[in-house]
């Protein structure tokens, strides 16, 4: 019986879109997936409010570095303006860089170089003495342009 239910859930999960009225009974799985896809996620740990974020900047590395630097400074400023304490605001910026497509149809290879302008950002903002909703608002406001890209 249990096995049938598991299979049903798997099939339903594949075939339909979940919403708040959904009766499929597999919302735990849905919430997990949804949670993974969320670009900004706010959690709390003891006194700290932790905002985790992931987004892309469709610019070359050097440009993206400057943009991210300004965005994080903007977040820091807004946390302080609300009377919060900054624990640590940090992010890692990675760029795909140069790519090369090598193609062979006979004996010689043909190479095509591609300059990437796609950078990924992953980061956290750990702060104190503001509300989780306030941190979420700050991060959404700062990163809105790139989350929607």
């Amino acid at each position, binding site marked *: 019986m249990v096995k049938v239910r598991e299979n049903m859930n798997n099939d339903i999960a594949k075939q339909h879109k979940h919403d708040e009225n959904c009766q499929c009974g597999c919302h735990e799985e849905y919430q997990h997936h949804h949670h993974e896809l969320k670009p900004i*996620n706010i959690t709390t*740990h003891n*006194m700290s409010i932790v905002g985790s974020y992931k987004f892309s900047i469709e610019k070359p590395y050097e440009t993206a570095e400057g943009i991210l630097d300004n965005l994080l400074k903007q977040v820091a400023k807004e946390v302080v303006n609300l009377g919060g304490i900054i624990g640590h605001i940090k992010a890692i910026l990675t760029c795909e860089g140069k790519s090369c497509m090598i193609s062979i149809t006979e004996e010689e290879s043909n190479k095509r170089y591609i300059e990437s302008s796609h950078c990924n950002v992953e*980061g*956290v903002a750990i702060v104190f003495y503001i509300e989780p909703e306030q941190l979420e608002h700050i991060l959404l406001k700062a990163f809105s342009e790139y989350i929607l890209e």
Partner: protein
Amino acid sequence: MKILILGGFLGSGKTSVVIQLARYIVGNNPENATKVVIIENEIGEVSIDDKVLRGDGYEVANMFSGCVCCTMSGELVIGLHNIMRDFNPKLIIMEATGVAYPHNIRETITQSMPNVDCVVTCITDAKRWKRLIRPMEMLLKDQLYTADVILINKVDLVDESTLAEVETSIKTFNDIANFFKISAEKQIDTKVFDAMLGNGKGA
């Protein structure tokens, strides 16, 4: 085997110290690398410090989405047993989250592994200390009070009188630890690492 717990508030410079400590232990002998395991514990859904350490060429085990001093203490013990079984290292460096209480981690470890030598080093941020001490006093106090070694980091970013004030303030929480003033952005004196590792011996 020895476990070095590295604690201290967010942004105090724990990862910068771990990078230099790992370099010191490994030295010019790559065989030494197999004797040390670094565990990174981070809160939040995204891990950053493990990527920084991997960029330096180290294998890093990451325990994130929770803090091992409280919500993940069970996972810590299981993780340590697995590391000991799989790698049999001489030293495990455990970088705690910036909101962890190192004495809780030490208590968890010594309760389940009474034969393991567990030492605590706590790092403080000289530049931000005066700004943080009022709002974060309880957390800072609880992080520091049982530390064996306390590193006062970022001393190059404050003047002498501020540094003296910071040191006096820190010593109200723990005046029996072994104190060192450092700038983790620059080369740290090897005697600091020897003190952190205990008995003046490396791994």
